[in-house]
């Protein structure tokens, strides 16, 4: 509870900073299962007030990962230490945490700062302290320093989180990533906005605003472009937009549906849905040449293509069995096989980056929730218990899923860990938030 209260206080703090966060996270489940960790506020070694609190970024990242819960800093045995040299292992013998992050920040020329941090293995330190005095470097897991500008504090905080997370879990951190999503505010003249923000909702930027619907944003593998559907010409069309240059390219504008784009792993083509020949079918379109290749051919609805990480197969939603279920098509042979059988409907699937599981929307007893299926054992687990869940998008390290849901009659974003233990909600300020898409590693 203490941690939660602290986290809430932190969220309030973040709200009051000029870069206002439209998406503030509320953790709804899974704090108790998280691993305790100690994060000390980084020691400011310059004149006047300290610049942004980098340790707060690290702490909130670790909380959001669902894997860690930082201890209350007020309860830590040492205060105001910034390097492993100041660390006294004996004082920490009763602290129930596996690791300690500490660091320093000092001025380093105009608008430049030198940030150093050390990651200490507390368990090892506690064990060795019992055997008598040892060199502090024995339990140092990592130690780095870098020069950053004032604008890079948050970014470098995420970088520290990535390192800490990977050292302690063996899994690459996904804190230096972004999300894109659609905000709909019907009280405004142009209600539909395509947004991009840091993975934690900070640094929200508008990429496109339109009086007509915007749908299905999805990232290119290099994290530089977004493909999406826009109805700006009163019909569905697929665009690719460069995030840096803002250049938009219309990729697909056939009669009928142009929808559900998904970049191929090499970034050169999109799997899309077209209904130009009658029913919605899966096609692959070359982004540069606009050449299309038809992949499916069935009188039922085929849509929502998503690539296997190896680029050799697609999964897609099809109604060919009577109800929406997920199928796989091998691109070289065109061979189609059904992947899901449990529940009334299964749709909107994607394969996790390790290729081992599939994340999708499952309908059981009329309820729509996010589910995961292990591709080797076929074991399916429903991950969420929120309402009208849709649009799941997996973090590039495969640990977390962001998805659209409904809370208090409004569309909001939520996150769930792929093991289903950690659950959080990202409430929006204005309007409805939907169609989240998690970027690749940036």
């Amino acid at each position: 509870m203490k941690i939660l209260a602290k986290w809430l206080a932190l969220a309030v703090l973040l709200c009051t900073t000029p870069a206002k966060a439209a998406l503030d996270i509320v953790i709804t489940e899974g704090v108790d299962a998280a691993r305790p960790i100690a994060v000390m506020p980084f020691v400011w070694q310059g004149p006047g007030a300290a610049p942004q609190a980098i340790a707060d970024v690290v702490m909130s990242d670790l909380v959001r990962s669902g894997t860690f819960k930082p201890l209350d800093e007020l309860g830590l045995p040492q205060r105001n230490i910034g390097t492993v040299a100041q660390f006294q292992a004996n004082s920490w013998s009763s602290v129930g945490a596996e690791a300690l992050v500490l660091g320093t920040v000092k001025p380093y020329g105009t608008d430049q700062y030198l940030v150093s941090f050390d990651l200490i293995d507390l368990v090892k330190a506690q064990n060795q302290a019992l055997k008598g005095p040892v060199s502090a470097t024995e339990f140092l897991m990592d130690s780095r320093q870098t020069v950053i500008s004032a604008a890079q504090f948050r970014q470098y905080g995420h970088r520290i989180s990535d390192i800490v997370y990977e050292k302690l879990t063996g899994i690459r951190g996904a804190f230096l990533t972004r999300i894109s999503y659609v905000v709909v505010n019907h009280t405004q003249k142009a209600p539909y906005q395509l947004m991009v923000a840091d993975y934690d909702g900070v640094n929200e930027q508008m990429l496109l605003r339109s009086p007509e619907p915007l749908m299905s944003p999805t990232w290119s593998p290099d994290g530089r472009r977004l493909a999406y559907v826009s109805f700006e010409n009163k019909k569905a069309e697929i665009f690719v937009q460069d995030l840096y240059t803002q250049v938009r390219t219309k990729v697909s504008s056939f009669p009928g549906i142009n929808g559900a784009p998904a970049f191929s792993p090499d970034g050169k083509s999109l799997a899309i849905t077209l209904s130009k020949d009658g029913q919605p079918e899966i096609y692959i379109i070359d982004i540069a040449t606009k050449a299309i290749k038809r992949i499916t051919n069935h009188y039922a609805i085929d849509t929502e293509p998503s690539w296997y990480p190896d680029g050799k197969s697609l999964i897609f939603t099809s109604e060919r069995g009577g109800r929406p279920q997920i199928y796989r098509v091998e691109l070289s042979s065109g061979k189609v096989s059904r992947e899901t059988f449990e529940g009334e409907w299964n749709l909107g699937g994607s394969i996790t980056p390790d290729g081992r599981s599939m994340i999708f929307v499952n309908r059981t007893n009329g309820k729509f929730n996010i589910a995961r299926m292990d591709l080797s054992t076929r074991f399916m687990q429903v991950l969420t218990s929120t309402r009208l869940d849709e649009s799941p998008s997996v973090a590039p390290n495969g640990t977390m899923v962001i998805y659209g849901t409904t809370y208090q009659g409004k569309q909001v974003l939520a996150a769930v860990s792929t093991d289903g233990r950690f659950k959080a909600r990202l409430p929006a300020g204005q309007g409805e938030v939907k169609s989240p898409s998690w970027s690749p590693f940036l």
Partner: protein
Amino acid sequence: MDLNKLLKAMLVALPIMALSACSSTSESETDAMGSTNGSGSELNGGGIQTGGVGAMLSAEEQQRQQLEDLRKQHIIYFDFDRSEVQTDFAAILEAHGTYLVEHPSVRVLIEGHADERGTPEYNIALGERRAKAVAKYLQGMGVQPSQMSVVSYGEEKPLDFSRTDEGFGKNRRAVLVY
């Protein structure tokens, strides 16, 4: 327009007259009185009321009138995850079809919509199937395919934001836009 109003008034008035003729209890009479008083404008006008009768319409005129009324309804609703046109909406579509056949230069846009259940991408497909079901129905009546175009908005443009079963029902629709 006046004729139309009168016809509507008669449609409402006739069954009420028939009802009150059948029932002889004082309760229903007070109810009827209450509703008359409730309308208010007559009282403000110093108690003066006027009455009237509808013009005699030929069968053909009546039919035209009916079709015109029906054409004012331009939303066709669908069952969950279904895209078949329900018999309840046959009359509305007949009216639109007749009009479009008689006016081959008029074009109509058929919008397909879905409720918020399922995924947005699947709902786009479902919305298109609904709009196409309506187009096919009209084509069956002789409307030229060149007179009709179809667009699906899926769950992106709900009419009702309540996300209740009733709201979902209002959102599962095809809309005829002239």
